[in-house]
Protein backbone atom coordinates (compact mmCIF):
# COMPACT_ATOMS: atom_id res chain seq x y z
CA UNK A 1 0.00 0.00 0.00
CA UNK A 2 1.31 3.49 -0.89
CA UNK A 3 2.25 5.56 2.12
CA UNK A 4 0.80 9.05 2.07
CA UNK A 5 3.16 11.69 3.43
CA UNK A 6 0.75 14.58 2.84
CA UNK A 7 1.27 18.23 2.03
CA UNK A 8 4.72 19.76 2.43
CA UNK A 9 4.80 23.56 2.57
CA UNK A 10 7.80 24.80 0.57
CA UNK A 11 7.60 28.54 1.19
CA UNK A 12 6.21 31.00 3.71
CA UNK A 13 3.90 32.68 1.18
CA UNK A 14 1.02 30.12 1.19
CA UNK A 15 0.89 30.22 5.00
CA UNK A 16 1.06 34.02 5.08
CA UNK A 17 -1.68 34.34 2.45
CA UNK A 18 -3.99 31.89 4.22
CA UNK A 19 -3.30 33.37 7.66
CA UNK A 20 -3.99 36.90 6.40
CA UNK A 21 -7.06 35.61 4.56
CA UNK A 22 -8.32 34.03 7.80
CA UNK A 23 -8.36 30.73 5.97
CA UNK A 24 -5.69 28.52 7.54
CA UNK A 25 -8.35 25.84 7.99
CA UNK A 26 -8.21 25.41 4.21
CA UNK A 27 -4.93 23.58 4.63
CA UNK A 28 -6.34 21.03 7.02
CA UNK A 29 -9.73 20.51 5.32
CA UNK A 30 -8.49 17.74 2.99
CA UNK A 31 -7.66 15.71 6.10
CA UNK A 32 -4.08 14.88 5.10
CA UNK A 33 -0.93 15.66 7.07
CA UNK A 34 0.48 19.16 6.68
CA UNK A 35 4.24 19.28 7.11
CA UNK A 36 5.89 22.65 7.66
CA UNK A 37 9.70 22.52 7.60
CA UNK A 38 11.16 24.46 10.54
CA UNK A 39 12.87 26.82 8.07
CA UNK A 40 9.52 27.79 6.52
CA UNK A 41 7.90 28.13 9.94
CA UNK A 42 10.69 30.46 11.08
CA UNK A 43 10.18 32.66 7.99
CA UNK A 44 6.45 32.85 8.66
CA UNK A 45 6.91 33.73 12.32
CA UNK A 46 9.33 36.48 11.33
CA UNK A 47 7.18 37.89 8.51
CA UNK A 48 3.93 37.79 10.43
CA UNK A 49 5.32 39.25 13.63
CA UNK A 50 3.09 42.29 13.32
CA UNK A 51 0.06 40.60 11.78
CA UNK A 52 -0.20 37.83 14.32
CA UNK A 53 1.86 34.68 13.93
CA UNK A 54 -0.27 33.66 16.88
CA UNK A 55 -3.00 32.60 14.43
CA UNK A 56 -0.66 30.03 12.94
CA UNK A 57 0.44 28.77 16.34
CA UNK A 58 -3.20 28.40 17.44
CA UNK A 59 -4.11 26.66 14.18
CA UNK A 60 -1.18 24.23 14.50
CA UNK A 61 -2.23 23.48 18.09
CA UNK A 62 -5.85 22.88 17.07
CA UNK A 63 -4.64 20.35 14.53
CA UNK A 64 -1.90 18.70 16.56
CA UNK A 65 -1.25 15.34 14.95
CA UNK A 66 -2.22 16.62 11.51
CA UNK A 67 0.09 19.65 11.38
CA UNK A 68 3.76 18.93 11.97
CA UNK A 69 6.78 21.25 12.16
CA UNK A 70 9.64 19.19 10.70
CA UNK A 71 13.25 19.74 11.76
CA UNK A 72 15.88 20.18 9.02
CA UNK A 73 19.62 20.67 8.78
CA UNK A 74 18.90 23.56 6.38
CA UNK A 75 17.40 25.52 9.30
CA UNK A 76 20.18 24.47 11.69
CA UNK A 77 22.76 25.77 9.21
CA UNK A 78 20.77 28.98 8.70
CA UNK A 79 20.72 29.61 12.43
CA UNK A 80 24.47 29.05 12.62
CA UNK A 81 25.03 31.48 9.76
CA UNK A 82 22.73 34.06 11.39
CA UNK A 83 24.73 33.81 14.59
CA UNK A 84 27.86 34.92 12.75
CA UNK A 85 26.12 37.28 10.32
CA UNK A 86 22.66 38.56 11.34
CA UNK A 87 22.08 39.84 7.81
CA UNK A 88 22.04 36.32 6.35
CA UNK A 89 18.93 35.99 4.17
CA UNK A 90 16.53 33.07 4.28
CA UNK A 91 15.83 33.32 0.54
CA UNK A 92 15.31 29.92 -1.10
CA UNK A 93 16.03 27.98 2.05
CA UNK A 94 12.37 27.07 2.64
CA UNK A 95 12.32 25.12 -0.58
CA UNK A 96 15.62 23.41 0.26
CA UNK A 97 14.24 22.46 3.66
CA UNK A 98 11.06 21.04 2.07
CA UNK A 99 13.15 18.93 -0.29
CA UNK A 100 15.23 17.72 2.66
CA UNK A 101 12.06 16.57 4.44
CA UNK A 102 10.81 14.92 1.25
CA UNK A 103 14.10 13.18 0.43
CA UNK A 104 14.41 11.80 3.97
CA UNK A 105 10.92 10.32 3.66
CA UNK A 106 11.64 8.94 0.17
CA UNK A 107 14.80 7.28 1.49
CA UNK A 108 12.55 5.27 3.83
CA UNK A 109 9.85 4.58 1.26
CA UNK A 110 10.44 5.24 -2.43
CA UNK A 111 6.75 4.81 -3.27
CA UNK A 112 5.27 7.39 -0.94
CA UNK A 113 2.80 10.02 -2.10
CA UNK A 114 3.48 13.66 -1.29
CA UNK A 115 2.29 17.05 -2.46
CA UNK A 116 4.60 20.06 -2.48
CA UNK A 117 2.74 23.32 -1.83
CA UNK A 118 4.11 26.37 -3.67
CA UNK A 119 3.23 29.98 -4.24
CA UNK A 120 1.23 30.46 -7.46
CA UNK A 121 3.50 32.56 -9.64
CA UNK A 122 6.49 30.41 -8.76
CA UNK A 123 4.77 27.11 -9.48
CA UNK A 124 3.72 28.36 -12.90
CA UNK A 125 7.11 29.62 -14.03
CA UNK A 126 9.76 27.50 -12.36
CA UNK A 127 10.40 23.80 -12.77
CA UNK A 128 10.37 22.31 -9.29
CA UNK A 129 9.57 18.67 -9.58
CA UNK A 130 12.13 17.53 -12.13
CA UNK A 131 13.83 14.36 -10.96
CA UNK A 132 11.33 13.64 -8.21
CA UNK A 133 9.28 10.43 -8.17
CA UNK A 134 5.97 10.50 -10.02
CA UNK A 135 4.04 10.21 -6.79
CA UNK A 136 5.39 13.57 -5.72
CA UNK A 137 2.92 16.19 -6.88
CA UNK A 138 2.74 19.98 -6.90
CA UNK A 139 0.04 22.35 -5.74
CA UNK A 140 -0.29 26.10 -5.44
CA UNK A 141 -2.27 28.10 -2.89
CA UNK A 142 -4.70 28.99 -5.70
CA UNK A 143 -5.01 25.33 -6.77
CA UNK A 144 -5.96 24.36 -3.22
CA UNK A 145 -8.47 27.19 -2.90
CA UNK A 146 -10.03 26.38 -6.29
CA UNK A 147 -10.51 22.72 -5.28
CA UNK A 148 -12.10 23.75 -1.98
CA UNK A 149 -14.36 26.15 -3.84
CA UNK A 150 -15.37 23.42 -6.34
CA UNK A 151 -16.11 21.06 -3.44
CA UNK A 152 -18.28 23.71 -1.78
CA UNK A 153 -15.98 23.88 1.24
CA UNK A 154 -15.30 27.60 0.86
CA UNK A 155 -17.44 30.26 -0.71
CA UNK A 156 -14.79 31.73 -3.02
CA UNK A 157 -11.05 31.50 -3.61
CA UNK A 158 -10.99 35.13 -4.72
CA UNK A 159 -12.65 36.22 -1.48
CA UNK A 160 -9.87 34.61 0.60
CA UNK A 161 -7.24 36.36 -1.51
CA UNK A 162 -9.07 39.70 -1.29
CA UNK A 163 -9.29 39.44 2.51
CA UNK A 164 -5.56 38.60 2.67
CA UNK A 165 -4.55 41.62 0.57
CA UNK A 166 -6.91 43.98 2.42
CA UNK A 167 -5.72 42.86 5.85
CA UNK A 168 -2.07 43.24 4.94
CA UNK A 169 -2.77 46.61 3.35
CA UNK A 170 -3.95 47.84 6.76
CA UNK A 171 -0.92 46.37 8.53
CA UNK A 172 1.34 47.92 5.89
CA UNK A 173 -0.25 51.33 6.47
CA UNK A 174 0.61 51.06 10.16
CA UNK A 175 4.20 50.23 9.24
CA UNK A 176 4.61 53.33 7.07
CA UNK A 177 6.60 56.07 8.78
CA UNK A 178 4.68 59.17 9.65
CA UNK A 179 5.42 62.31 7.69
CA UNK A 180 7.86 64.83 9.14
CA UNK A 181 5.05 67.19 10.13
CA UNK A 182 3.07 64.46 11.87
CA UNK A 183 6.15 63.16 13.67
CA UNK A 184 7.11 66.65 14.84
CA UNK A 185 3.55 67.30 16.07
CA UNK A 186 3.65 64.02 17.98
CA UNK A 187 6.96 64.93 19.66
CA UNK A 188 5.66 68.42 20.53
CA UNK A 189 2.51 66.89 22.01
CA UNK A 190 4.48 64.40 24.12
CA UNK A 191 6.89 67.08 25.36
CA UNK A 192 3.98 69.35 26.27
CA UNK A 193 2.31 66.54 28.24
CA UNK A 194 5.57 65.72 30.03
CA UNK A 195 6.14 69.39 30.90
CA UNK A 196 2.62 69.83 32.24
CA UNK A 197 2.83 66.66 34.36
CA UNK A 198 6.21 67.75 35.79
CA UNK A 199 4.82 71.20 36.54
CA UNK A 200 1.79 69.60 38.19
CA UNK A 201 3.90 67.09 40.19
Amino acid sequence: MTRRLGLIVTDASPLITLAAGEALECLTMPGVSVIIPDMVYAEVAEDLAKLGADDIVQWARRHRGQVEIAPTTVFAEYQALRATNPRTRSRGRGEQAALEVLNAAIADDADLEAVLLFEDADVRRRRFVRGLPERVMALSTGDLLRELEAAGRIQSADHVLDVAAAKERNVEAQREPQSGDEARALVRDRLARRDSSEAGG
Partner: protein
Amino acid sequence: MTGNERERLVRRYAAGDITWSALREQGFDNYAHVLGALGALGLRPPIAPMDGPNREARERGRAFIREALKAAR
Protein backbone atom coordinates in the same frame (compact mmCIF):
# COMPACT_ATOMS: atom_id res chain seq x y z
CA MET B 1 13.84 50.83 -4.79
CA THR B 2 11.57 53.82 -5.48
CA GLY B 3 7.83 53.78 -4.85
CA ASN B 4 7.17 53.74 -8.59
CA GLU B 5 9.47 50.77 -9.19
CA ARG B 6 7.86 48.94 -6.30
CA GLU B 7 4.38 49.57 -7.69
CA ARG B 8 5.40 48.50 -11.19
CA LEU B 9 6.84 45.23 -9.88
CA VAL B 10 3.78 44.48 -7.75
CA ARG B 11 1.47 45.13 -10.70
CA ARG B 12 3.56 42.78 -12.86
CA TYR B 13 3.41 40.18 -10.11
CA ALA B 14 -0.40 40.48 -9.85
CA ALA B 15 -0.62 40.05 -13.64
CA GLY B 16 1.45 36.86 -13.42
CA ASP B 17 4.34 38.35 -15.41
CA ILE B 18 6.94 37.83 -12.67
CA THR B 19 7.32 35.39 -9.79
CA TRP B 20 7.57 35.84 -6.03
CA SER B 21 11.16 34.64 -6.34
CA ALA B 22 11.83 37.47 -8.81
CA LEU B 23 10.32 39.98 -6.38
CA ARG B 24 12.67 38.70 -3.69
CA GLU B 25 15.62 39.24 -5.99
CA GLN B 26 14.40 42.81 -6.52
CA GLY B 27 14.47 43.54 -2.80
CA PHE B 28 11.11 42.50 -1.35
CA ASP B 29 12.03 40.95 1.97
CA ASN B 30 8.86 39.17 2.88
CA TYR B 31 5.58 38.11 1.38
CA ALA B 32 3.46 40.00 3.91
CA HIS B 33 4.79 43.23 2.37
CA VAL B 34 3.83 42.00 -1.10
CA LEU B 35 0.30 41.28 0.08
CA GLY B 36 0.13 44.74 1.65
CA ALA B 37 1.32 46.39 -1.56
CA LEU B 38 -1.26 44.41 -3.57
CA GLY B 39 -4.00 45.48 -1.18
CA ALA B 40 -2.95 49.13 -1.40
CA LEU B 41 -3.33 48.94 -5.19
CA GLY B 42 -6.69 47.19 -4.98
CA LEU B 43 -5.18 43.99 -6.36
CA ARG B 44 -5.13 40.41 -5.12
CA PRO B 45 -2.45 37.68 -5.26
CA PRO B 46 -2.48 35.86 -8.60
CA ILE B 47 -3.88 32.38 -9.08
CA ALA B 48 -1.68 30.67 -11.63
CA PRO B 49 -3.38 29.39 -14.78
CA MET B 50 -2.89 25.68 -15.38
CA ASP B 51 0.12 25.87 -17.66
CA GLY B 52 3.90 25.91 -17.47
CA PRO B 53 6.51 23.27 -16.67
CA ASN B 54 4.72 21.86 -13.62
CA ARG B 55 1.27 21.57 -15.17
CA GLU B 56 1.11 17.76 -15.03
CA ALA B 57 2.38 17.64 -11.45
CA ARG B 58 -0.19 20.30 -10.46
CA GLU B 59 -3.05 18.43 -12.13
CA ARG B 60 -2.08 15.36 -10.13
CA GLY B 61 -1.85 17.50 -7.00
CA ARG B 62 -5.34 18.87 -7.54
CA ALA B 63 -6.71 15.36 -8.16
CA PHE B 64 -5.06 14.24 -4.91
CA ILE B 65 -6.78 17.07 -2.99
CA ARG B 66 -10.11 16.31 -4.67
CA GLU B 67 -9.93 12.68 -3.60
CA ALA B 68 -8.79 13.62 -0.10
CA LEU B 69 -11.72 16.04 0.27
CA LYS B 70 -14.17 13.31 -0.80
CA ALA B 71 -12.65 10.86 1.68
CA ALA B 72 -12.68 13.46 4.46
CA ARG B 73 -16.46 14.02 4.18
